[in-house]
């Protein structure tokens, strides 16, 4: 069985592409991006379709690439009675995600001071391999943080109560259980709260380059040339350890419950099993850890702006627009075959994109739909999108999460040989700071698909809609 193009923006991976598929696969992709589509990634979309209890289809977004078990960019929902949950469908970096902060500043005010700002930000926010956070957490602090997420951060002076209204799930998931977290995860988490990490994680100072929907931009408080800050990071070593721990637990569960798996990294357990209950409660702890992390980093970002611009918080107006998770599994209500049912939605490198009127949206966004934040590479752009009714009906209210790599790190380093990526970016008005040996070469624009193409696909497929394009002027990388 071969893949089949359904329309300009979708292809189908038919039942039979791999043995045992229960539902088809649907990949949102146009002909431009299809040339990057790896066969391994298609196979992974098909493999997910073999898992027990999967409903409707195994989806993948246009930024798809090969991952572990599930493809990156994958979305799959499972029936709560018959379905499974898989750590491979969430990823190692549990609740890796993005937040966007707006300001009252315009780019003309920021550009003269951008070098200083980037220096201060990179000094205040620990990043890179081997970096340690500024917070010294006791075991009890860690426990509280696991339970309360961003709320813990706000209660401890990192940000404002109002921030919590602008975070997916209010910045924490209930029923996280610190008693299920391994000693190792506690240890890895202790020193890494409030750190950015490395690789594709970043903190970016940007400005609003283009607005596609004035009314929606108004509701989000966005206007042309306005300076924004985007933060992309996750649950750091804490989440990685929880995933590592539970892949082992799930490998045993697969034998115990006699689940057929085409790939070992799809290890999973029935949602109703004890193993699943434990993973879910641990995953929630990691999700909360990540929300606290982005909250702390945002707090230091605000402080850095206050220092550099010598303005009051009120005059700076650095309000959180929204914070989204793009590696997570959640129980949600969706309409399937005309019936409203609860399902376990896995999003791995995919973003929730709920439509206008959804009960989980904060009051201020009820009319426009959920803000969706899509980071691109450090040289091009990032996007603000909104969730749509069509997306809710079609892809479990999900959309893409970023650009997705096209070059491996070595290919990128080879391509950057003899060039100064830092200077090239400076020449187009982007100041970057990175502590990594080869980070700038690895992360250069050419290493990624063009985010504009990715966003065009999800917008044309109507699973989300465009509000604004943001262009970087200052980048902090690990």
């Amino acid at each position, binding site marked *: 069985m071969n893949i089949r193009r359904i329309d300009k923006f979708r292809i189908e991976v038919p039942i039979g592409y791999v043995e045992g598929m229960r539902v088809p696969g649907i990949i949102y992709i146009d002909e431009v991006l299809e040339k990057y589509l*790896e066969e391994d990634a298609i196979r992974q979309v098909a493999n997910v379709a073999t898992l027990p209890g999967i409903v409707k289809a195994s989806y993948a977004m246009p930024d798809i*690439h*090969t*991952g*572990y*078990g599930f493809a*990156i960019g994958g979305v799959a929902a499972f029936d709560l009675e018959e379905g499974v949950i898989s750590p491979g469908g969430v990823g*190692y*970096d549990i609740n890796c995600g993005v937040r966007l902060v707006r300001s009252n500043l315009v780019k003309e005010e920021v550009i003269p001071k951008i070098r200083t700002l980037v220096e201060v930000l990179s000094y205040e926010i620990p990043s*890179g*391999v*081997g*970096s340690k956070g500024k917070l010294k957490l006791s075991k009890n602090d860690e426990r509280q943080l696991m339970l309360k997420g961003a709320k813990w951060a706000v209660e401890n002076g990192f940000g404002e109560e109002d921030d919590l209204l602008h975070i997916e799930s209010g910045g924490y998931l209930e029923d996280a259980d610190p008693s299920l977290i391994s000693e*190792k995860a506690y*240890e*890895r988490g*202790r*020193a*890494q709260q409030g750190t950015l*990490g*490395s*690789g594709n994680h970043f903190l970016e100072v940007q400005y609003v380059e283009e607005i596609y929907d004035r009314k929606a931009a108004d509701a989000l408080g966005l206007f042309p040339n306005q300076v924004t800050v985007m933060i992309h990071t996750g649950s750091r*070593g804490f989440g*990685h*350890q929880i*995933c*590592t721990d539970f*892949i*082992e637990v799930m490998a045993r569960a697969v034998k115990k419950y006699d689940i057929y798996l085409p*790939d*070992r*990294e799809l290890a999973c357990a029935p949602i109703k099993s004890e193993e699943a209950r434990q993973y879910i409660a641990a995953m929630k702890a990691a999700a909360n850890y990540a929300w606290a992390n982005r909250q702390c980093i945002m707090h230091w970002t605000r402080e850095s702006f206050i220092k550099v611009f010598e303005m009051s918080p009120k005059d700076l107006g650095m309000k959180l627009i929204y914070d989204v998770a793009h590696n997570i599994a959640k129980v949600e209500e969706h309409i399937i075959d005309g019936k409203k049912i609860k399902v376990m939605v896995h999003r791995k490198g995919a973003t929730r994109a709920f439509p206008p009127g959804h009960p989980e949206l904060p009051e201020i966004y009820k009319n426009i739909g959920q803000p969706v934040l899509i980071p691109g590479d450090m040289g091009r752009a990032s996007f603000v999108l909104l969730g749509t009714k069509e997306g809710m009906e079609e892809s479990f209210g999900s959309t893409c999460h970023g650009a*997705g*790599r*096209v*070059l*491996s*790190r*070595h*290919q990128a380093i080879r391509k950057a040989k003899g060039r100064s990526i830092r200077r090239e970016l400076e020449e187009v008005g982007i100041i970057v700071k990175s*502590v*990594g*040996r*080869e980070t700038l070469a690895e992360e250069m624009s050419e290493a990624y698909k063009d985010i504009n193409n990715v966003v065009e696909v999800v917008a044309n497929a109507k699973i989300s809609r465009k509000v604004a394009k943001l262009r970087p002027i200052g980048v902090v990388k*690990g």
Partner: protein
Amino acid sequence: MKAHFETFDTTADVGITVYGENLKDIFGQAAIGLFSFITNIKKLDTKISKSLEINADSYENLLINWLNELIFLFDTEGFVGKDIKIKELSETKLIAMIKGDFFNEKKHSRGVLIKAATYHKLKLEKKNNGWMATILFDI
């Protein structure tokens, strides 16, 4: 065959292929391969020694657990190894002595941040003249 490793990368991640005469070589070289992603290990001292015992129910699981333990050591203590002695190795148990140093950003280069060793496309095979393993890391 001299035990050695080669690194490679996929579009989004990195991996190593390890060659050796026996399984002890494989486990030792896999560790060196992992550390070489984190920093330039030539610049490391060997003043710190660590002794580790790892348990699992198969060689494959033991290999992944061993590498994940090393990732844990780096993440929590900043420890990076350079000389690895595999003292004991069976299908269920590994005992190793590692000499290396604590990562110091002023002295050591920052390489790639490794999240975990994975089972994705994991290979551990006996070849005509020795053993070979392939391991992919999530980064």
